[in-house]
Each structure stands twice: as C-alpha cells, then as structure tokens.
C-alpha cells in the first residue's frame, strides 16, 4: 500500500512561512528513497509528516492528507503508527535514554505490547551487529554503535517503513558505510521501505534507488537516481553536490 501524500501544506505554530507547500508524493513498498535539499527546505518536516508526528504531536497549520496504508495519519495516534513507520532522529544522544542496550530496544516493544520481547531484542541487535552489548550503557557506546542502536530500536518494532534523518551526519567513513550497508540489507532482504534524508549525494548515488529533491517546501524533482542526478543544472542551482561520475 505504501504511503501517499496528497497536497500537503504545513506551517509551524507561531510562524507564517509555509515549510511544506503542496507536496504530492507516493512511496511504494520496498522503495529506497534519498531526500536531498538545502538546509531549511523542509526535509525533516516531511519525515515528521510521514509518521504522524505532524500534526498529532507538533502543532501548526496542516492541510492535505498523508495516508499510511490507506489510513490518514490524523485519525491514528503516533504510538499506533509506530508499528508501521519507524523514525531515527538526527542526534543519537537524545533519543537513547535507557540504562542498558537491552532495555533500550525493549522499550518500544513493551509499550506496543508486542509478544516475544526477548527474542525480538536479540534479533534486532543481531541485525545491526551489536550482539554482546546487551548490558552496556547506551551513552557509553561509540557514535557508530549509538546510531546502530537507534536503528535497532526501530527495527525491533518491525515497521514496514523506516525513516532516517541524516543518520550519518556525525559518523566517520567506516561507520557511514556500515549504516548504509545495513539499510541496503534491510531494504533488499527484508523488503523494508527506506526513506533517508542525506546531504552526501555520493552515498545516495551508490545506495538509493529513487531521489527526491526538495526546495522551499516543494518537491522540485522526484524520480530514479539516474534521472535526478543527470539533471546537473537543477542540482547546481540548488547548491547540491553532483555525485562523482554523474557529470
């Protein structure tokens, strides 16, 4: 079923600028989409709309419709949507809060009253390669491990779609590769839909399949990576780096 966005407009409370302005979008199951655009163009806001944080938790003027599996996000709670759409926020330090890695992953499962908690925790940690860290303190992990743990927390809830907001902005090259390798595995082997906001177009050229270019709250271009990255003039105008080997 995927996620359908129909004519979405959003203005944050207390501001007059339309952060999203007439966005129409269809995300199919199994897509690997990279979202690019200048800072402040509404990438993060779009992600928040896709999993119902907007308008359920973040208030503002919301027009249009976001349908997750055919159900509008306005009619269900964020916690209910968490089973379908998971999100990894930008800063790992402020989304990890538990005393142990095990508890961190189990937190969402317990809240959603899922069964087989222990087993799912083990599976999720195995998927991201954090076996053996069950009793470690999340805050003491390395940056790369923290990011992997954030992903594990989402993967454990087994949503169909995973949204990531600049997952590699403070990681070194090796960990960045690890994260994207994991995303590719989740996408190809488990059929998860991945939507990732990323500044590094080289990475997207390598891993993503579709690219979404956003500027000033509007979708400027939406298509396969070949289609988008060959439009050098558009990327140049928006100040987006053209990936190596595409010009």
């Amino acid at each position, binding site marked *: 079923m995927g996620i359908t966005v129909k004519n979405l407009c959003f203005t944050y409370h207390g501001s007059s600028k339309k952060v999203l302005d007439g966005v129409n979008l269809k995300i199919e199951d199994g897509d690997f989409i990279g979202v690019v655009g200048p800072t402040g163009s509404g990438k993060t806001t779009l992600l928040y709309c896709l999993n119902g*944080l907007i308008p359920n938790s*973040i208030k503002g003027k919301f027009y249009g419709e976001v349908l997750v599996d055919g159900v509008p996000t306005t009619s269900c709670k*964020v916690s209910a949507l968490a*089973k379908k759409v998971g999100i990894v926020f930008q800063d790992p330090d*402020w989304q990890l*809060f538990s005393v142990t890695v095990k508890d961190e992953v189990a937190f969402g499962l317990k809240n959603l009253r899922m069964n087989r908690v222990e087993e799912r925790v083990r599976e999720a940690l195995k998927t991201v390669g954090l076996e053996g860290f069950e009793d470690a303190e999340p805050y003491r992990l390395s940056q790369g491990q923290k990011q992997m743990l954030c992903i594990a927390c989402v993967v454990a809830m087994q949503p169909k779609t995973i949204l990531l907001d600049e997952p590699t902005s403070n990681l070194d090259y090796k960990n960045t590769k690890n994260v994207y390798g994991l995303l590719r595995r989740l996408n190809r082997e488990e059929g998860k839909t991945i939507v990732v906001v990323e500044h590094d177009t080289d990475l997207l050229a390598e891993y993503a399949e579709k690219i979404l270019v956003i500027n000033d709250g509007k979708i400027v271009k939406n298509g396969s990576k070949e289609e988008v990255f060959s439009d050098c003039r558009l990327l140049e105008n928006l100040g987006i780096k053209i990936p190596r080997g595409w010009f």
Partner: protein
Amino acid sequence: MVALSTLSLIVGWSLLYITPIFFSVLASIFVFRVYRKLLGWLKFLVIAGLLILAVQTFTYSGFGFSFEGLFYGVSFALRFLTLILLVFIFVHTTPTRKLVEAFSFLPYPLSFMLMLSLNMLPRIEDLAKTIVNAQKARGLNFKTLNVFKVYPPILIPLLSKTLEKSQQLALALQTRGFE
C-alpha cells in the same frame, strides 16, 4: 591552664559523637577508592567546613567568640562534611542501574521519570562542558567572582539547548509507543 583544659573538654565533647562517624566515612572514601574524584572537591569542602565553624564560633551567643560556639561549630562542620562525603561515596559507587532498580516499586510513570532524569544528567553535563569551553574560547573570564557576569552566558544557552533537546526526546519517546 584552665582555658586549655576547657578547650580540650569542648573539643573532646564535640568530637565524641560525630568524630567516629566522620572518620569511618573518611576511611570508606579510601576503601571505595573514590579519593581521586574527591580531590577536585576538596577545596570547596574545606572552605565550607571552615565557614560553618567560623559562623558558629562567632555568632553562637551574640556576636563574639565563645567556646560553646566553637563546640557547636566543630560538631556542625563535621556533620556537614559527613553528610556530603556520604552522598559523594553513594553517588560514585552506585551505578545508575542499581539506583533505578531500587525505585522500581514506584508506579511506572514515576520510576520511568526518575530513570530518565538520572540518565539525562551526563548528557547535560557534557553539554555544559561544551558551552563552558565555547565561552572560554570567546574570552569569558572565569576568574572574576562576579556571578552575574559568569553564569548567564553559561546557564542561558544550557537551558535553551536542554529544552530543545527535551522536545526531541519527547518525540523519540512517542515514536517508540510511549503515551
């Protein structure tokens, strides 16, 4: 001679009850190997102790020196230090996990709130360090004792950043099914 014997009597009395406790606490600092961490606080503790002693000594019976004041001064200073050292040992020998487990008899939202705030402390501490370094790099003079000049440039960014991050944390909790 009389003065000396009076003094020894006073000191003896004041030390009688509190001293054994104080020294056992002091000894446990070494038993639990937390003395290295204590070094940074030593100056503060000594100053605070002396301050209590001085205030008690000179204000106990009107303004002016009195032996009773000294008696209570020593006693209170030792009590104060005992308490501080006990808390110090407790904090540095108890992992957050154990502390949270001890409070698990509370209703879930309360114990969760406690766990959350205890776990967020190191992050806020790190944030404060970053802000202090940033302000130092921009020439904020920490040697002046003028609290109105030193604290606002640290507390205001710390508070606004913490509020901002706490909102993000709230979003993260919601997306993990917490209501």
